[in-house]
Structure formats: structure tokens, C-alpha cells
């Protein structure tokens, strides 16, 4: 009985008790959610265009952030380092297309998935060789990102909101809008979707795989850099960041692998829910750290109801 009480009543009482704290929890969740969504966006773009489940998205985030900071450490002014990093990401996209995707065209999904894990390892090795394994500090101020924090004081408590988090949220929104426009306005958008369905047929109608893939991977690279800046500003830049990428997986599944909307909704939902669950149920009842699995279980439950995720394309089953 008391157990039921602690599951169904106490958490809500807690929320009502300290609404400022609740708001803080939601805000924290929202900010992580934005980051999950950003990583997931990179995934979605690549998945849409090639059915490649790009495991390397996480490491691309680290790589982009490290390049940026690394360049700056070597005396490149911050505002020049950004375009230079983008150039590096472009070269990376071209390289990946040439060396990995082109030879593996039309292979089964799992092979391509594996290849992206290969890319991940390669980039980790490369990144560590070049930049070393140490933690680095994101050049937040140099990039003109405000670092202070605002404290709002509702309900007699306080909610502290970091300005860089706000910047992150705003930046993410802009990025997403740009992406949606790109995908829906252009014939590229259609070609990207076609490519995902059938490589060979896409080739046969003259869609240039290389161009699209380079483009898509480059855009993912841009998203990776944005993510890297935002996340790096929160937690420093190091290879430990790579594990965050795993969080993007449930986000994707929840939202649907090929849906931009899904990535955003999924990201925010998971970010907020896992935080709320952890604070109000996980810590008091389950010994904490439930964030390690909550997102996956949530996604699993949703998939049981909708096997293609909330916004994913229905899996075609016809004979």
C-alpha cells in the first residue's frame, strides 16, 4: 500500500510542493533533450538518404568540437576556426563518401551500419592521435556565446537558467527550421528519400549518390559541430562525449528513423521524461541512475504500440 503510495502519489505531491524545483528539472531535461535531438537529427538525415544507421554521428560531434578547440589552441582566432572546422568536416564527408560509402553501395543495412562503427573507431584513433586524450575546454566566450546565468525566482524558489543553454535552444531551433526547409522545398529532398529506398534504382534514374551523400554527410557535420559547441560548453570536450551519442538511438527509434519532426519531439520527450522520472521515481525508489536505461525502455514501449516510431514511415509489408 505504502509502496503504491510512493509510486502514484508521493512523486506528484513532491512536484506540487516545490514547483520551482520541478521547473528546474524540466528545464534541465529540456536542455539535454535539445542536445539529444541535435545528435538524432544528424542520424535522421543520413538514414533518410541512405538507410545507413550512422553510428559515427556521436564521434563526429567530438571530432568537430576537438578540431575547433584544437585549432584555437594553435592560435587560430575563434571566428576563423569555425569555418576552418567546417572545411575539415567537408573534407571528412568527401573522404567518407569516397573511401567507405561508394565501395559499399547497395550492401545490406547491417554492413553499412558496421562500416560506420569502423568509421567511429577510425575517427577516435585519429582524433586522439592528433589532439591527445585530454579534456579540453570549449572556447565558449571566444565564440561570443554568453556564459552567465539568469535566475528566475518563481514560487519563492529559484530556477537558474544558463545563458549558453538558452543560446543552444535558440540555435537548435534555427538549425531545425533551415533543415526542414531544405528537405521539403527542394528536389534534393525527394532524391534523398528515393535514395534511401533503393540505391540501385536511384542510380538508374541518374541520382548522383556521391553528390547527395557528400552533401548529407556535410550537413550532418555541420550539425555535429553545432552539437559539439553546445555540449562542449556544458561539459568540456573529450572523447567521453561519444557515449552521449548512444542516447540519440532511443530518440530516433521513438520518433521514427526517418523523421526530422520525430527526432525533435523524441529528443525533447526523452530529455524531459527521463529527468523527471529519475528525480521523482528513480532516485527515491530505484536507487538512481535510471537515466541509463529509461530512454530505451520508453522507446521500446512506444515501439510496441507503433513499430515504426511516432513519426516514422510505415514499414511496407506486401506480397
Amino acid at each position, binding site marked *: 500500500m505504502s509502496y503504491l503510495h510512493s509510486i502514484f502519489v508521493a512523486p506528484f505531491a513532491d512536484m506540487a510542493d516545490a514547483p520551482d524545483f520541478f521547473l528546474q528539472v524540466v528545464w534541465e531535461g529540456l536542455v539535454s533533450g535539445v542536445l539529444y535531438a541535435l545528435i538524432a537529427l544528424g542520424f535522421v538525415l543520413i538514414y533518410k538518404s541512405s538507410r545507413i544507421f550512422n553510428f559515427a554521428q556521436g564521434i563526429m560531434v567530438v571530432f568537430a568540437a576537438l578540431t575547433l578547440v584544437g585549432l584555437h589552441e594553435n592560435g587560430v582566432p575563434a571566428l576563423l576556426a569555425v569555418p576552418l572546422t567546417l572545411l575539415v568536416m567537408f573534407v571528412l564527408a568527401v573522404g567518407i563518401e569516397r573511401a567507405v560509402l561508394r565501395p559499399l553501395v547497395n550492401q545490406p543495412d547491417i554492413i553499412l551500419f558496421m562500416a560506420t562503427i*569502423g568509421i567511429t573507431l577510425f575517427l577516435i584513433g585519429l582524433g586522439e592521435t592528433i589532439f591527445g586524450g585530454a579534456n579540453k575546454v570549449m572556447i565558449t566566450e571566444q565564440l561570443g556565446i554568453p556564459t552567465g546565468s539568469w535566475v528566475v525566482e518563481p514560487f519563492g524558489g529559484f530556477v537558474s537558467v544558463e545563458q549558453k543553454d538558452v543560446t543552444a535552444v535558440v540555435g537548435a531551433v534555427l538549425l531545425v527550421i533551415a533543415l526542414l526547409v531544405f528537405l521539403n522545398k527542394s528536389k534534393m529532398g525527394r532524391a534523398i528519400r528515393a535514395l534511401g529506398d533503393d540505391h540501385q534504382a536511384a542510380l538508374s534514374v541518374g541520382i548522383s549518390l556521391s553528390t547527395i551523400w557528400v552533401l548529407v554527410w556535410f550537413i550532418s557535420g555541420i550539425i555535429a559541430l553545432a552539437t559539439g559547441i553546445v555540449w562542449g560548453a556544458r561539459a568540456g570536450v573529450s572523447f567521453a562525449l561519444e557515449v552521449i551519442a548512444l542516447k540519440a538511438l532511443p530518440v530516433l*527509434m521513438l520518433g521514427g528513423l526517418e523523421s526530422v519532426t520525430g527526432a525533435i519531439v523524441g529528443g525533447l520527450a526523452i530529455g524531459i521524461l527521463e529527468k523527471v522520472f529519475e528525480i521523482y521515481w528513480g532516485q527515491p525508489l530505484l536507487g538512481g541512475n535510471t537515466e541509463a536505461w529509461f530512454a530505451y525502455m520508453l*522507446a521500446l514501449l512506444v515501439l*510496441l504500440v507503433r513499430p515504426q516510431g511516432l513519426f516514422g514511415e510505415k514499414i511496407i509489408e506486401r506480397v
Partner: protein
Amino acid sequence: MFYRIAGQYKTSYGADYALFPIKQDAWLLALILVFAFVVFPLTASDFMFRALLIPVLIYALAALGLNILTGYAGQLSLGTGAFMGVGAYACYKLITIFPEMNIIGAIVLSGFFSAAAGVAFGLPSLRIKGFYLAIATLAAQFFLLWLFQKWAWLYNYNASGAIQVPNTQLFGVTITGAQAPVLAQYFFVLITVCILTAFAINITRGRIGRTWKAVRDMDIAAELVGINLMKAKLSAFFVSSYIVGIAGALFVFLWRGAAEADLFDIQLSFRVLFIAIIGGLGSILGNYLGALLIVALPVIIGTVPAAVGLPISSAMVEHLNTMIIGALIIGFLILEPHGLARLWALMREKLIIWPFPH
């Protein structure tokens, strides 16, 4: 020239089911077994056993388990590490609760625990497909790992949260724990792996194996030819997780000697997946080749710079190693997406028709 198949006839279907329709293959296997059972034990050093042979065998076994699920039944799993963990913790609990229990019994039983976990997390596969299914296995991976950490009963409330393998004996020889001679451990692992491999070969070439492959290739069609998808998928999860669980028990008991929960993290799952894919999905042989490549190669590469006297720091070796492994994975996938086993099969085919090119 060595692969002449002319003159080898079969006169019954039974003979056609022989494992090696071509004699040369049987000889090759015999040769390998002689190496495994006689030559290595006579020549290899402790380091060879502990850093190469035993882990290669155990990883190959884990990959074999995964391969049944992913390669034969077509269900992608990213939770192998956690299922290995279930096997290991189950074995640990069995041994500590029933200290009298024979280690073989404990290992055999522990497989059932991971098989049960596998089936539980396999249930969603009836509805969820492809990469989406990966989420179910990821959920298993992270949830179980969390459980290994939080459920102190699992590690007997040990302060450090780690499990420590006790010394156990089999026929008067210490077989697990720090006291165990490495040769005994090697043989134990080798024999277990051989037996399970034989079982796996038999299952995969019979009716059950066929239903798995049918589900993998086209599950709708499989259903329409009368295969019960639920049975097929769940049996694949069962058998696969069973083998994976045993591999996990061996992993900790016959090799590592101690383990904390993080050992069974997603990296382990990925490593096993690498082995299965690089070796060749849907092949038994591939697991061994893959394990050699993924487990042994880094060890060997790691010793090269020192051996040739290159003044590279250990960290740099490690970085380069990571890079090389990444590049190798991509390289092998490009060379032969179906894995080393297929590469070998093609070579063999060429040998058979040698010296003609086609």
C-alpha cells in the same frame, strides 16, 4: 591442386549430409584441431594462452551465439554484452550459493538464465523489426547493466561491486580462480567451445536452422509457408542467448577471474558484433576468423613497434591501433561484405577450379 573434388561421389542422402562433403576440408579441420589440442599446449606461453588463445575462443563462442540470432535468424542484437553478463552473474551466484556444485553444472545452468533473459527481451521482435528491434536489445543492454550495478545481491554485497571467481576444482584440477593452471583452463574452454560449435552446426543445418534463415531472408514469406514466426524468433533468441550466456560465464570464470558490471557494457556488445560481421554473418567458421582478427590482431599489432624497436609511446600505439582496427573493419567490409568466411569460401572455390580462372 590440393582441392581436387573430382572422384568424390555420394551415394546416399545421409552421405550428402556429411559435414565435409569434400575430403580436403576434413583434413584441414583435423589439422587445425591437432594444432589446438596438441601443438599449442606444447608450445604456447602463458601470455599466448591468456592474451590470445583463450580470449579468441571465448569471443568466438560469444560471436557464434550472436551469429545465430543475427546471422541466421536476422534479428540484430546490440545487447550481447549484457546477456554475457547474465551468464556470468548466474554462474557466480550458482557457485557461491551451492559451493558443492560442479563447475560444469554451473556453467551449463547459467546459460539458461541468459536464455530466459534473451527470450524476454526477444518478445518485442514479434512486432518490431530491423533497426527498430535494436532498441529492444539496447534496452536489455542498459537495463541489465544497471541491474548488475544496483542489485547488490548479485555480487554478494561485495563492497567494490565486483565479483571474484573462487577457485574450483574439476577432477582434482583447479579449473577456475587464480590458482588454476592456464593449460587446464585452456582445455576446458577449448572443449566447451568445440562441443557447442558442433551443436550449433547441427542446429543450423537442420529444420530449425532453416526456419531461422527463412525468417531472416523474408519473414512474411516464411509466415506464408507455414513457419510460426513466434516460435522461430524466440527459439533463435533462446539458443543464441544460451550460447552467449555460456560464453559470458567462461569469459569471467575461465579467463578474467573477476568482473565488475561495466565489463559487460555496450563496447563488449559491439566487439562481439564486429567479430560476427567481419567473420561473416550466417557462418560458423566466420566467428573464429573474426575473433582472430578482432581479438588477436590488436594484441599483435600492439607488440610490433616494441618488437622492431620503434620508439612509439604506448598511448600512440593504442591510438594507432584503434585507427587501424577501424580501417581494417572498413577494408574487410569493402573487400568482402559477407565476411572472412565468404572470403575463404571464394578462395576455396578458386582453389577447386585452379589452375583455371573460371
